């Protein structure tokens, strides 16, 4: 079989695969709706409807944090969701993005936009290193999860130990005039929260677009084939090692973006805030809650998890209570809704179909996001 022959057959398979899943425009349409909503969301926070306003529950700050974790989770999803190689150490990439940006800014006065790209590239290379080491020796399952965790912890302790890397006290973000002209877009620093919101929203749009493009391309088909059955994928000639590396490289790059934003949004970063164990979980949680391997899932998941834990933190004056909620959520979602939050509308419709008045139309609505 010639090369071109194989390509055309693969394209055909991809088309079939895609149409089998859903209409090609379904996911982009839903995403466009979501991003449209997010675009106006901070502007309607202070509007009162029937005496209530969203602003009394969530602030722009909470929205920013939600989008940060959505972006990071979208990055995690490209590797762990698409290829099924469960990473428990994405804090490594998040931290490298954050540190790359701040370190270059503090020591070389490099513009954070450039520093972010360099940090993300370094994170990507670190991801490739992890990938080469682990996939070459075919670590899977628990072993891979523990190995990625070890690589993240390794960075945490390395940054903690060496004062050249900031040590345990980390870095303060300098004022814009020490490296640029003034506050503003070029300096990646603002006096208000709202510009930050639109920047992280922009990041999320880019990451989501790339993630969707990957998923709907032949690359995505290969990645999902690896997830479903790696040996079978290898048997039909997919170079699984190479594609797993592509997955981890892209994933690390985008997770590092979220970290870079984190570094510019908060005044200070320390190894214990960007590399710690809980960061690993906060990165993967939105994807798990929303729906692993889906493009919409990480965004929806972030909006389920983060505001809830914020509200729990603000409304109950007990230290640690929000983490109880967080833990219960983790356990509950995995036990009772392993398909994630994006399956909830369909399940609701199914329940209505089973118990509600009209039994007939229930099966026609099973056309959700893939």
């Amino acid at each position, binding site marked *: 079989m010639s090369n071109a022959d194989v390509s055309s057959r693969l394209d055909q398979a991809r088309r079939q695969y895609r149409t089998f899943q859903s209409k090609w425009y379904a996911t982009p349409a839903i995403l466009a709706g979501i991003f449209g909503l997010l675009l106006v969301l901070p502007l309607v926070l202070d509007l009162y409807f029937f005496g209530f306003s969203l602003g009394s529950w969530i602030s722009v700050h909470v929205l920013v944090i939600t989008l940060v974790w959505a972006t990071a989770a979208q990055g995690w999803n490209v590797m762990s969701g698409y290829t099924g190689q*469960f990473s*428990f150490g994405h804090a490594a990439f998040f931290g490298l993005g954050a540190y790359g940006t701040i370190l270059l800014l503090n020591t070389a006065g490099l513009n954070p936009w450039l520093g972010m790209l360099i940090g993300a590239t370094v994170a990507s290379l670190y991801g490739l290193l992890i990938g080469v*080491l*682990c996939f070459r*020796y075919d*670590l*899977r*399952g*628990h*072993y891979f*999860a*523990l*190995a990625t*965790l*070890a*690589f993240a*912890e*390794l960075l*945490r*302790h*390395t940054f*903690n*130990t*060496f004062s050249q890397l900031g*040590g*345990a006290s980390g870095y303060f973000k300098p004022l814009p005039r020490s490296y640029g002209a003034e506050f503003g877009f070029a300096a990646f620093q603002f006096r208000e929260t709202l510009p930050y919101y639109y920047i992280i929203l922009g990041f999320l749009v880019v990451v989501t677009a790339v993630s969707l493009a990957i998923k709907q391309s032949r690359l995505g088909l290969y990645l999902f084939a690896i997830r479903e059955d790696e040996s079978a994928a290898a048997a039909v000639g997919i170079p699984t090692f190479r594609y797993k590396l592509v997955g981890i490289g892209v994933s690390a790059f985008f997770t590092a973006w979220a970290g870079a934003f984190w570094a510019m949004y908060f005044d200070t970063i320390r190894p*214990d805030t960007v590399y*710690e*164990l*809980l960061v690993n*979980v906060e990165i*993967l949680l939105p994807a*798990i809650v929303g729906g692993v391997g889906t493009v919409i899932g990480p965004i929806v998941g972030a909006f389920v998890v983060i505001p809830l834990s914020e509200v729990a933190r603000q409304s109950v004056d*007990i*230290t*640690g*209570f929000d*983490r*109880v909620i*967080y*833990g*219960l*959520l*983790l*356990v509950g979602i*995995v*036990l009772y809704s*392993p398909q994630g939050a994006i399956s909830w509308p369909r399940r609701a419709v199914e329940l209505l179909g089973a118990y509600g008045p009209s039994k007939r139309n229930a099966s026609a609505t099973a056309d959700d996001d893939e």
Partner: protein
Amino acid sequence: MGFSFDSVAALPSIGGLATESATVAFIQPSTALQLLAFAVLLGGIYGLVALGLTMIFGVMDVINFAHGAMMVVGMYTVWWTATAFGLHPILSIPLAVLGLFAIGVLVHLTTISSIMDAPQENQLIVTFGIMLILISAIEITFSTDPQSLGLGLGSVAIAGVFLPLGQLYALLISISAVVVVWLFLQRTQLGRAIRGTADDRTAAQYVGINVPRIDYLTFGIGAALAGLAGAVIPLFQQINPYLGDSYLINAFVIVVLGGLGSFPGALLGGLIVGFVHVFGQYFLPGSGYQISIFLIFILVLLLKPEGLLGGGVSE
């Protein structure tokens, strides 16, 4: 959110030793012997922590992320019963073990049992959630302040080597626990059933072993061992709600190092990590010892993923 892994209190006298010989290029024999003693004492505790983890890992193929939190529950059980009711710490240790066995069985029956066949990461996430709940419950009940039994057990000196008595007792209890568990696994019918399940779950089912029952017993015993490991720690160290984390991360290293499901492997791995911890803390700056532990871990993971003494129980 305030987690920290650097809170495994260094063995107190190491700091003094370090300043004493900072200018000496070579290590004096007496210092080496002292460090060796500390390494064995710490390595024994590490081995005990890894024991429950490796058992659950080997039999059920589940990473119990809540292991460290269960240790913390054990620590606070001992501290609380000792300070609130004046119970002697040695007497409250069995209490912690029994309590944690019950918690383990309960956790397994309510959560783990229904997702035994789900993808592996699901168990990881669930046990992580349980860890958050347990740690936060401890935090809410007892605050985040460090607590101490204030036993002041002192130490004995043998051939110029100081052995803190609290740690010595802890090590002795660990050793007896290992022996008891080993005898239980080797000599009893139930132990044989557990080992059979670890070897091959399907085959175990075919020969009539009640695997779900083995699962909850294993999880209970694993949790009880975590409780025991936690219970001996207040004998020689201040406790706080986050203390379990540092032990947990190193316990993962030990379990993979020694080979999952391998008991001698857990002890060997514990000793190795104990050595690297003590000697690394002496010779390397900052948390250089922890970096070394992870480097060894990654090396072993890559070169011999089945662990140093692994091979009995395969994935």
